[in-house]
C-alpha cells in the first residue's frame, strides 16, 4: 500500500510537468490553430534562463592562491562571485536562491521570445496545412537547440535547489504510515504545487478576466469576435507569449530536478503531444487531466512488480509503452480524446 501511494504521488509529480507543457501547447492550438513542435524548445529555453541567471550571479573576481596549484602546477586561481564580495551573506543567499529568483527574469524573456516567434515566423503559417506548421516549428526547435548547445555545450549543467529545500518530507508519518516508508523530495513537492498554481492561474485568467473572456470567445468563434471590432489577432499573439511563459516557468523550476541540457525539450515534446491528444485537442482541462493521468500510469508501470507481470504475459518494457498504449486505446474508443469537443478528430 505504501509503495502504491508513493508511486501515486510520484505520478502526480511527473504528470504536473506533462500537464504544464501540454497546457501551453493546447493554448496555442486552441487560439491560433497551430501545432507548435517548438514548444519543447520553449521549456528548454526557460531552463536555460535559470542557468543564465545563475551564471550572471556567479560572475567572479579572480584571485591567486599561492599556497595551492592548479592541474598544470601553476598557482591556483580562486574565483569568488562579485555578489558575495559585495553583499557578503546576502550575496550567498541570492546565489542559493538563484533558481526561484530566475523566474523574475524568465517571465519577460519568455513572453518576448513567444511574441517574437509568433510575429516573426509562425503567423506566416496560419493558413498553411498542419504538416507545414509541424515542419517549420520542428525546424525552429532544432535551430534553438543548436544555438543553446553552441553557447552552453552538450553536457547537463547542474542547478541546485535552495538549501532550505534539500532533503525529503516524510509524508507517510503524517497519514499514519511507519516512518520513512513514504518520503518525497521537498523540491519535487514544490514543483507539483507550483504547477498546480500556474495551471489554476491560467484557468482563472481565462475565466475571470475580460481579456480571458475575449480569448475564449475567439477560440469559440474567431470570425464573430473579429466582426465585433476586437483585434483578436493581437490577443492571440499575447496568448502565444503567455503559453511560452508557462512552458518557460515549467523549465525554470524543473532545473533542480534534472540538470538541464539542450535536448531536454525534445524529451518532453512527444510525450506532451500524446497528452494533448489523449486529453482532447484544444481542451485545456483535458490537457491537464491527461497530463496527471498519464504521469500516474507511467509511474505505476515503472514498478518492478508491474514490469515483471507484463513481461510474463509477453509485454516487456511496459513502462516504455504504457503512455502510447493508452493513447492508441483512447484514439480507437474515443477519437476526440477524454474531454475533447465532439467532432474534433472524429470525422
Amino acid at each position, binding site marked *: 500500500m505504501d509503495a502504491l501511494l508513493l*508511486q501515486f504521488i*510520484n505520478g502526480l509529480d511527473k504528470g504536473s510537468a506533462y500537464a504544464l507543457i501540454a497546457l501551453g501547447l493546447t493554448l496555442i492550438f486552441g487560439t491560433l490553430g497551430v501545432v507548435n513542435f517548438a514548444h519543447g524548445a520553449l521549456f528548454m529555453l526557460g531552463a536555460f534562463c535559470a542557468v543564465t541567471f545563475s551564471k550572471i550571479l556567479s560572475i567572479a573576481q579572480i584571485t591567486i592562491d599561492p599556497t595551492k596549484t592548479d*592541474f*598544470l602546477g601553476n598557482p591556483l586561481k580562486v574565483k569568488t562571485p562579485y555578489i558575495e564580495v559585495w553583499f557578503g551573506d546576502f550575496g550567498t543567499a541570492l546565489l542559493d536562491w538563484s533558481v526561484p529568483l530566475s523566474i523574475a527574469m524568465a517571465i519577460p524573456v519568455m513572453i518576448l521570445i513567444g511574441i517574437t516567434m509568433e510575429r516573426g515566423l509562425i503567423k506566416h503559417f496560419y493558413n498553411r496545412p498542419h504538416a507545414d506548421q509541424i515542419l517549420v516549428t520542428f525546424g525552429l526547435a532544432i535551430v534553438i537547440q543548436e544555438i543553446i548547445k553552441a553557447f552552453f555545450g*552538450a553536457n*547537463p549543467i547542474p542547478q541546485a535547489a535552495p538549501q532550505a529545500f534539500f532533503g525529503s518530507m516524510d509524508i507517510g508519518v503524517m497519514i499514519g504510515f511507519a516512518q520513512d516508508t513514504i518520503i518525497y523530495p521537498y523540491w519535487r513537492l514544490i514543483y507539483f504545487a507550483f504547477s498546480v498554481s500556474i495551471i489554476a492561474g491560467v484557468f482563472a485568467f481565462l475565466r475571470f478576466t475580460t481579456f480571458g473572456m475575449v480569448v475564449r470567445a475567439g477560440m469559440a468563434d474567431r470570425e464573430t469576435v473579429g466582426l465585433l471590432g476586437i483585434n483578436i489577432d493581437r490577443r492571440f499573439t499575447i496568448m502565444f507569449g503567455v503559453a511560452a511563459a508557462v512552458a518557460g516557468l515549467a523549465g525554470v523550476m524543473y532545473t533542480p530536478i*534534472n540538470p538541464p541540457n539542450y535536448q531536454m525539450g525534445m524529451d*518532453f515534446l512527444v510525450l506532451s503531444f500524446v497528452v494533448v491528444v489523449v486529453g482532447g485537442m484544444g481542451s485545456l482541462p483535458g490537457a491537464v487531466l491527461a497530463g496527471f493521468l498519464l504521469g500516474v500510469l507511467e509511474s505505476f508501470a*515503472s514498478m*518492478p512488480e508491474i514490469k515483471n507481470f507484463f513481461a510474463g504475459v509477453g509485454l516487456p518494457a511496459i513502462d516504455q509503452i504504457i503512455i502510447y498504449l493508452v493513447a492508441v486505446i483512447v484514439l480507437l474508443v474515443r477519437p476526440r480524446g477524454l474531454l475533447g469537443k465532439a467532432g474534433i478528430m472524429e470525422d
Partner: protein
Amino acid sequence: MSKFQMNRRGLLKSGAVIGAGMAMPTILTAGTDSGYTNAPTGSTVTLGFNVPQSGAYADEGADELRAYLLAVDHLNGHGDGGMMNTFSSNALQGNGILGKEIVYVTGDTQTKSDAARASAQSMIQKDGAVMITGGSSSGVAVAVQALCQEAGVIFMAGLTHSNDTTGKDKKANGFRHFFNSYMSGAALAPVLEKAYGSDRVAYHLTADYNWGWTTQESVQAATEAKGWSTVANVLTPLTATDFSSYIAPVLNSGADILVLNHYGGNMINSLTSAVQFGLRDRLVNDKNFEIVVPLYSRLMARGAGENVKGIYGSTNWHWSLQDEGSKAFVQSFGQEYGFPPSQAAHTVYCQIMLYADACERAGTHNPCGVAEALEGFDFDGLGNGPTHYRAGDHQCFKDVLVVRGKENPTSEFDLLEIVEVTPRAQVEYPVDHPLFAGGALGVCNPGS
C-alpha cells in the same frame, strides 16, 4: 568424355600459380604496401576520427577530437611530443607514420549505430581512411568494429566499456585500449566490501542496452562473490530522463545499496533523483544506504554536481595520476586547451599512438601487419602503467582506478579522487570467460 592430361610444362605452371597463391597471405603479413584497403600512395596517410559531435555525448566527443588533433600534431613532429616522450616503444620518429604525414577526416556518430556506420563507411570509401577510431558508446563501437572488419581496415575503439566489444562481438580488425565492465566489477568489489562490508543487499537500476546489461552482470557477479545479495535488477529505458518512478520503489525494497548501471545523461539524472529522494540519508538494515556508480567520467561528474560526493565508481584513467606519461599528457593537453583531459581523451590519444607505433614496427599500414604488431604487445609510459594488448581478444590489460566523488573539490576539474589503483592481475580473466563467451575473433581482413 574428356581425359585429364598433365605434361611437365603444365605441372610447372600450375605449381607456380598455386605456390604464389599459397604465399599471398605471408606476403601480405610480411608488409607490402599494396593489396589492402586504402593503401596510402602519396606523401600522406589518412585516418578517420568517428566521434559524437552531436547528441548526448557531444562534449565527450569534442574532448576525444581534441586529443586526436593533439596526437596527430605530436606524431607529425609538432608540439612538445606529449606521451611520445614517455612511451616505452622507440619506434615513433615524429615524422608521421612510416614517413607519411598524417592527415585526418572526421565523422559524427551522433551516438547512433546507423549514423556511426554511415560516417565510417564514407570515411573509408570516399576519403580513403586506412584506420577508423572513435566512439563514446558500446553500441556504436560494436557496429563500427563490424563494419571495419568487413571493409578491411583497423578499428581502434575509443570509449567503449561493454564486455561484448572484446567479448561476443570481438573482431580481428578491432582493438580496445579502454577497460571493460568485468574489470570495473573486479576492481570495485573488494573496495566496496572494505568500505561497506560483505553483508549488503543491492538494488540495480540498469540502462536497457548492451553496455548496461554487461555492466550489471559483471558488478552483480563480483559483489555477490564478496557476500552481497541482489534484491532486484530493474531495466530502465535508455531514453528515460526522469528516474523518480524507478527510484521510489527502492525505498521499500529492503536494499541498502543502489547500483546505478547508467552512463552519461542517464547517470546524471538517476543519481540526482536518488540523492533527492534522500537515499543517502537513510538507515536500512542498520546500515547507511549507499550508492555506487560502476563507470565514472569527469564530464559526467561535472553534470551531476554535488551529488557525486562520496560515491564510488571506476575509471580508466584520471588526470591527477602522477606517472610520467600522465603528467606529460596533462601538461600537453592543458597547455593547448586550458583544462585537463578526460578519460575519453586519454584513451583515444593512446590508441593513435599505439596504432602509429604498430605501423612503424610492422613497416606497413596493412591491417594484418598492424594487427600482428599489436597482438601481444607489452608497453608502458602511456599513463596506465605496464599494459598488455592481449592477442586472444584484442583487449588491453592494465591497472584499473577505483575513484570516489571528492568531498572538497579545489576546482571545477577536481571532482574525483583516486581511492585505489587496482593491479592488473586482479582484473585479468581468461579469453573464454563465460561473461565474454559467444563470439570468435576470426581472421584479419586486409580488404581489397
